[in-house]
């Protein structure tokens, strides 16, 4: 079964409901990357409100996905983590998740838009000063 990826303007939305098996995860990752590159999407919101366990394997997978997206120039935001999952994850160890997060899908879209907007403004380069 494929994990569906939806599109909202230039943003991709995906929801990890049941536990991903390895092949599904790899498929999801490559699909996100392809959509960002080929279809000019700016980033992805990954919702995990349906997960009641985030173990170190899932955490690694999410981290990996986020860095892949960032490497090709996109942004990724994780949303919807259940409070008890967050609690357990923190108890389990430090620094297990290394990506932008937001409370829910709506907030996630806002965070992602901000990230994209902040990146979208190219640094102003001062015109070279020419002595006359």
């Amino acid at each position, binding site marked *: 079964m494929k994990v569906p990826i939806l599109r909202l303007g230039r943003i991709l939305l995906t929801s990890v409901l*049941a*536990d991903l*098996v*390895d092949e599904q995860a790899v498929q999801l990752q490559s699909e996100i990357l392809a959509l960002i590159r080929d279809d000019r999407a700016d980033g992805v919101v990954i919702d995990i409100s349906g997960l*009641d*366990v*985030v*173990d*170190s*394997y899932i*955490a*690694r997978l999410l*981290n990996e996905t986020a860095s892949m997206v960032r490497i090709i120039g996109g942004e990724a935001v994780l949303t919807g983590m259940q409070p*008890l*999952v967050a*609690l*357990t*994850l923190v*108890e*389990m*160890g*430090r620094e*297990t998740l290394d990506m932008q997060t937001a409370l829910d899908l709506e907030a996630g879209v806002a965070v992602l838009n901000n990230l994209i907007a902040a990146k979208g403004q190219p640094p102003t380069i001062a015109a070279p000063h020419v002595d006359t």
Partner: protein
Amino acid sequence: MNRTLVIECRIVRELDVAEARRHAKQMAESLRFKTVRVYRLITAVSELACNLCFHASDGGVVRLSTIDMDGTSGIEVVAEDDGPGIADLALAMRDGYSTIGGLGSGLPGTQRLMDDFAIWSERGRGTRVTAVIWNR
């Protein structure tokens, strides 16, 4: 201490991990564990079962037992395989160490989530992790 084996789950594929987790959740809920402790248990079971999937060549078994000591109930998780064994146990228990590009928080994380934790491993013979969480 009384121990009653409730279920033995053979773990070969990733789908088996979900099955073990489901049984663990059922057990903890029927023993009326606090929700926080249910989540700790299922996360630990997930870690241990995933280890069997990814590290042991032919998978392994997860045995879930209810235990009782002086009127306090608990759940014991035993994850066992006859895989390659762990070369350096101290290293495997260290945060951030992984041989397969993982986060390296699986075993130390499990130890933190559970109340009691013991690990045995011998090169070429296998690995056994025993972890207990009490209902308190």
